[in-house]
C-alpha cells in the first residue's frame, strides 16, 4: 500500500501506456510525463501567484486579492482569462521576429530544466549521466531570451532592463555553479538521481542531507543567494525596478506574451528551487526515518513550496539593492566564499569519517566569513549620510 502510494504516478503512467501497442509505449510514456510537467507547474504557478499576493498583503498589512471566489482563490483564473483576451500589441519600431521569439525561447528553456529533476522515487523524465550540466546549460540559455526581449523592443527601458538582467545573471551564475560543484565533488556524480540517492541515508533517524554539513550549509546559503539573483527576485529585482525601468525587459509586452514572461519567472523559481532541494535538501527523501512511509513526491513538492514561501517572505522584507552593491556582493563576497567552500568540501572528502573534519571545515568557513565581513565593513568607511543631488 505504501509502495503503491509512493509510485502512484509511475503506476498510472504504466497503466495508461499499456493500452497502446508495444512499439508506441516508450514514446507515449515520455509524452505523458512531459504533459504532466507542463500541466503541474503552471497549476502550481497559479497557486504561487495567489500565495504571493496574499502573503505580501499580509506582510504589508492589507488584504490582497479578495474579490474573485472565496479568499480571492479564483484570482489566477480571472487573470489568465484577462491576459488571453487582451490585445497583443507589438510596437511599430520593434523587431517583430525577435520580439515574437523571445518569450517562446524563454518558456521552452525554463521548462527544459524539469526534464532532469527527480520529483520522486523513479519519477524523473530522463536520467542523464550529466543531468546537472544539462540543467545549467538550459539555465544559461534563458539569458539570451531575456536579451532578445529587451533588445527587440527598441525601448530604452527594455534595453536597460535586459542589460541589467543579463549582467546580473552572468555574475551570479558563477557562484551558482561553484556552490553546486561542491555537491558534485562529494556525491561523485553529475546525475541528479545519484545525488539524491547519496543523501537518502539515515543515522539515528536523521537524514544525511548535504545541508547538515558545514560545507553544505555554506553552499546552500550561497546557492540561495545566487538563485534569488538568477530569478531576478527581490532583493535582486533591479532588472524590473518599477520606479526606474517600468517593467524592465518585458515593458513592451502585452497580453499573452506578457503572461508567458510572468509564467517563465515563476516556473524558473520552481525549477531552481527543485534543483536546490535535490542538491542540498535531499530531494524526495523524508526529513526523518520514521516518516519514510509518506510518498516521496509529497516531500519533493513540500520542500519546493517551502522554498517558494521563503522567496515570498524575502520579497516582502528586504529592500532592493543598488547596481554596484549587487556586483560587489557577487564578485567580492559570494564568489570567494564559494571558492573557500570548494576547499572545505575537498578536505571533507579526504579527511575521512570522524569529528575532526567537522571542526576543520567549520573553522575554515567561519574564519573566512568573519574575516571577509570585517574587511568589507572597514572598507565601507561608514560616516554621516551625504546627499549629492538633493539638499
Amino acid at each position, binding site marked *: 500500500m505504501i509502495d503503491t502510494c509512493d509510485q502512484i504516478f509511475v503506476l498510472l503512467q504504466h497503466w495508461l501506456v499499456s493500452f497502446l501497442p508495444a512499439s508506441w509505449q516508450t514514446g507515449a510514456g515520455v509524452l505523458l510525463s512531459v504533459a504532466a510537467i507542463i500541466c503541474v507547474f503552471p497549476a502550481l504557478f497559479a497557486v504561487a501567484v495567489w500565495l504571493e499576493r496574499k502573503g505580501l498583503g499580509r506582510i504589508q498589512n492589507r488584504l490582497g486579492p479578495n474579490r474573485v471566489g472565496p479568499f480571492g482563490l479564483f484570482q489566477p483564473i480571472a487573470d489568465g482569462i484577462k491576459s488571453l483576451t487582451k490585445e497583443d500589441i507589438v510596437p511599430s519600431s520593434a523587431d517583430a521576429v*525577435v520580439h515574437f521569439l523571445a518569450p517562446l525561447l524563454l518558456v521552452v528553456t525554463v521548462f527544459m530544466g524539469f526534464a532532469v529533476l527527480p520529483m520522486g522515487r523513479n519519477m524523473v523524465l530522463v536520467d*542523464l*549521466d*550529466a543531468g546537472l*550540466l*544539462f540543467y*545549467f*546549460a*538550459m*539555465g*544559461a*540559455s534563458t*539569458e*539570451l531570451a531575456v*536579451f*532578445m526581449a529587451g*533588445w527587440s523592443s527598441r525601448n530604452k527601458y527594455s*534595453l536597460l532592463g535586459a*542589460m541589467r538582467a*543579463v549582467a546580473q545573471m*552572468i555574475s551570479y*551564475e558563477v557562484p551558482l555553479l561553484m556552490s553546486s560543484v561542491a555537491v558534485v565533488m562529494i556525491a*561523485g*556524480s*553529475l546525475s541528479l538521481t545519484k545525488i539524491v540517492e547519496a543523501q537518502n541515508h539515515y543515522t539515528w533517524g536523521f537524514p544525511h542531507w548535504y545541508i547538515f554539513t558545514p560545507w553544505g550549509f555554506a553552499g546552500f546559503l550561497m546557492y540561495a543567494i545566487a538563485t534569488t539573483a538568477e530569478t531576478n527576485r527581490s532583493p535582486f529585482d533591479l532588472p524590473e525596478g518599477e520606479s526606474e525601468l517600468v517593467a524592465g525587459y518585458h515593458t513592451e509586452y502585452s497580453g499573452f506574451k506578457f503572461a508567458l514572461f510572468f509564467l517563465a519567472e515563476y516556473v524558473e523559481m520552481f525549477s531552481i528551487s527543485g534543483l536546490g532541494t535535490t542538491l542540498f535538501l535531499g530531494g524526495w527523501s523524508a526529513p526523518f526515518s520514521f516518516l519514510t512511509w509518506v510518498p516521496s513526491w509529497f516531500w519533493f513538492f513540500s520542500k519546493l513550496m517551502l522554498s517558494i514561501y521563503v522567496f515570498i517572505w524575502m520579497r516582502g522584507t528586504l529592500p532592493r539593492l543598488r547596481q554596484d552593491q549587487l556586483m560587489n556582493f557577487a564578485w567580492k563576497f559570494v564568489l570567494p566564499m564559494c571558492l573557500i567552500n570548494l576547499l572545505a568540501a575537498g578536505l571533507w572528502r579526504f579527511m575521512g569519517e570522524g569529528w575532526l573534519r567537522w571542526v576543520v571545515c567549520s573553522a575554515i568557513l567561519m574564519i573566512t566569513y568573519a574575516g571577509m565581513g570585517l574587511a568589507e565593513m572597514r572598507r565601507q568607511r561608514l560616516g554621516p549620510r551625504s546627499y549629492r543631488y538633493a539638499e
Partner: protein
Amino acid sequence: MSFVFYLLAAITVAGGLAAMLLKNTVHCALALTVAFAGLALLFLNLDAQFAGFAQILIYIGAVAILVVFAILLTRSSETPRDGIFSRTWLAGLAVAAAVFAVLGWAVLHSIQVLPHETAVPEVTVQQIGVALVGRYVLPLEIVAMLLTAALIGAVIVAMHEKVGHEKEEPK
C-alpha cells in the same frame, strides 16, 4: 548518416550563413547562436553528452552574450548602407582558406590514421573528468592560468582610469 544528421547540419550551416549575410549585427550574433546550438545538437546526436552540454553552456550562455554585449557597447547595431569592407579582405580570405584547407585535410586524413571503430565507445562524464585531472592535468592547469591572467589583465585595463581618478579626489 541519418535524417537527423542532415537536419542538424542544415540548421548549423543555415545559422552560419545567416550570421554572414544578415544586415543587422545583432541579428548576425543571434544567427551565430543558432549555429552554436546546431553544433551542440550534433554532439548530442553523436552521444557526446559532455561536449554537447558544455557547448551550450559556454557558447550560448557566455560567448553569444559576450558578442552581443560587445556589439551594443561599441557601436549601434545598424550597419551603414554601403556596408563595411575591410581593406585587408584579401589577406583575410587567404587565412580563412588556409584554415579551412588544414581542417579539411585533417578530417579527410583521420579516416586512414584512426582505425575505424566498429562499436560506439561508452564514455561517461566521470571518465572525462578523470582524464582531465589525471592524464591531461598539465594542459588543463596551463589553460586555467592563461585564462586567469587574461581575466586579471582585462580587469586592470578597465580599472586603470578609476585608480588615477581616486588619487585626485580630496579626502
